[in-house]
């Protein structure tokens, strides 16, 4: 099994990385960046599907919460209603998991190939030999140069810059995808996820070779970009509400609000007012080309009751 995995997954990636290094001025750092970008582009359709499914699931949460309240004592009915809701909205509940599961082996292979190429002990190099194809350029390229910018790619970054970049970028990405919620339990979980992943990977970046940390950082940056172009900044940029109540002082005109809470309440009201039709919250997303996406409500449109 291990042999099969090495042959069909890790081996090709190892060889591609070496070829890229040769073409990119002998820089293994540039090769890591290039392959990460290429793999992300190839997996774009899957990523897009995953992000769309995730968004759709997020937007359905208020309705699901309603159902849970409504059928708290009838689990069977709850399940039926949930399935009906999914069906009506055209959502497959597993839609965000399937692309993720398909992508997972590819990420493992990329991760393992970088690890293998960064090994700087003799046994690591001996082990690497079995992955190389017979192309001459592959054999003469080893060992790869380990210097990239200020980094020794085979060693952790002692300057802390890369671990901070890894942790910081992960926080941004996590923040973008964390849905606003009024449920204290869910909010607590969201907060935990928001901080746990960046801290964990930031800590890993302190311990692992910086070539790997570079891979994490570039991957996260690409995910942030994809996320931005598909759904906007999400929950990263707090919404601002503009109260229009007459007689208020100008200084109180622009007040930061809890965007998530406002949006949640808005949606709930809109949901009730529309007799159950789904409203788009439009949390900071760019408008779709067709102009069908609604802008977030501001100021006088704010029916949440919060005026600052």
């Amino acid at each position, binding site marked *: 099994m291990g042999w099969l995995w090495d042959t069909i997954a890790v081996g090709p990636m190892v060889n591609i990385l070496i070829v890229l290094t040769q073409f990119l001025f002998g820089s293994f750092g540039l090769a890591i960046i290039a392959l990460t970008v290429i793999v992300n582009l190839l997996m774009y359709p899957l990523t897009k599907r995953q992000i769309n499914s*995730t968004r759709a699931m997020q937007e359905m949460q208020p309705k699901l919460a309603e159902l849970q309240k409504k059928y708290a004592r009838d689990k069977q009915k709850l399940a039926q209603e949930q399935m009906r809701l999914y069906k009506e909205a055209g959502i497959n509940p597993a839609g965000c998991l399937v692309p993720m599961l398909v992508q997972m082996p590819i990420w493992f292979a990329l*991760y393992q190939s970088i690890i293998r190429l960064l090994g700087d*002990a003799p046994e690591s190099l001996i082990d690497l*030999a079995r992955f190389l194809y017979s192309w001459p350029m592959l054999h003469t390229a080893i060992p790869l140069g380990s210097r990239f910018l200020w980094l020794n790619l085979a060693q952790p970054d002692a300057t*802390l810059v890369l671990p901070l970049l890894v942790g910081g970028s992960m926080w941004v990405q996590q923040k973008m995808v964390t*849905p606003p919620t009024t449920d204290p339990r869910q909010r607590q979980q969201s907060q935990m996820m928001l901080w746990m*992943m960046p801290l*964990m990977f930031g800590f890993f970046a302190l311990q692992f070779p910086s070539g790997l940390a570079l891979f994490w950082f570039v991957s996260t940056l690409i995910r942030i970009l994809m996320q931005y172009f598909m759904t906007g900044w999400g929950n990263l940029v707090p919404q601002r509400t503009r109260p229009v109540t007459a007689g208020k002082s100008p200084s109180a005109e622009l007040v930061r609000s809890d965007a998530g809470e406002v949006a949640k309440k808005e949606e709930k009201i809109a949901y009730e007012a529309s007799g159950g039709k789904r409203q788009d919250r439009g949390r900071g997303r760019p408008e779709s080309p067709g102009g069908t996406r609604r802008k977030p409500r501001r100021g006088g449109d704010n029916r949440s009751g919060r005026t600052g």
Partner: protein
Amino acid sequence: MSFLKYAGKRALAFSGLLLMLAVMAAGCAPNPPAGGGSAPAISGGTIYIVSQRGELMAMKPETGERTWSAALQQPAQRNLFGCAAAPSPAAVYGTPAVAGELVYVGGYDGRLRVYNNGLEQARYPAEGAAPVGGIVGSPVLGRGNIYFGTSRGEVFALEAATLARKWQAGIAGNGEVVALDVTSARGWQSDGRSRVWATPVLADDTIYVASMNGRLYALNADTGAEKWRFATGGAVTSPPVITGDTAYFGSFDRYFYAVNTSTGQQVWKSSIQAIRWFWSPPLIAGGAVYAGAMDGKVYVFDAATGANLATRDLGAPLVVAPVLSGDSVLFVTETGRLWALDAASYQARELQAAITGKVHAPLTLDDTVLYIHTREPDSLYVVRATTGVNILSIPLSSR
């Protein structure tokens, strides 16, 4: 259902968690720390060997009974938060160099240690000083000095008695050899391709150093000044074997070379190319060069012309140099299979040695007894060279 509901909400975060867990489960964390595995040195009726746990042992060859041992520990390093991790064993790949009661051991932690009857007597660099690059090849004694190369492309000549530095050279990214003094040595950095993993070879007043930048260097053994350099197309990890005025060695470009030691000019280059790297040094016997490659094949070349006399497939990578026992050239594959090549007919026959584990450490032959240090398990096999019969197997790390 509830799983799906929550998974939808946090799929991206969840994917990160899964990735981490799978990475842990699959054991694909960064390459494990260097394991080492030195070849045994035999001197004065004693075997000196370093286990994979960094324990230097002196033992009796007949029984494997230990007379003394010493743990090579790399000092605890403080992390960012000021906490010191526990000291870890230093990996040793090279064969210890022995001079009387003194045993010199080069560690992958960048320290050369000298032991006398199990007690550390001296160390270079001194206690508390920053280590040099990781030492992979064996340290070599000669001309009153001890020579060794490092993974940072440094070459050292220290006074053997005091470990005072005689000279230090560094191989720069452009292939130049640079003399390093105390100040310039402090800021020395390697590009990762200039590593000197091959054991330096001392012949008269010249020390030959192979680098992973693909070059073989001849340096003045007393000053470190460069005499000549010879470039191949790939990294060189095998020390050259010097016979007469010719140096023989293989390269990662999968060609084998013979170079004139006086001029640094190529005498010949093999006409055939191996499928994988030449990792280990060859053996020269009876006018023939026996070179094992990582494609599992033994290439026999005419020492004078480089003509390919024979090629034999031994079925598994060859990463250690062969040894000559009588009329047979003995090869051990990475998987522990022992082969004897007839020096006259070049026919190969497998000896039925019961060896388990990977063989990366050089072989040591003492008369008709062959010593093989394996990894996984960390053991020393003592084998009759003529028959392959196992005389003794000594577990090293579990003792």
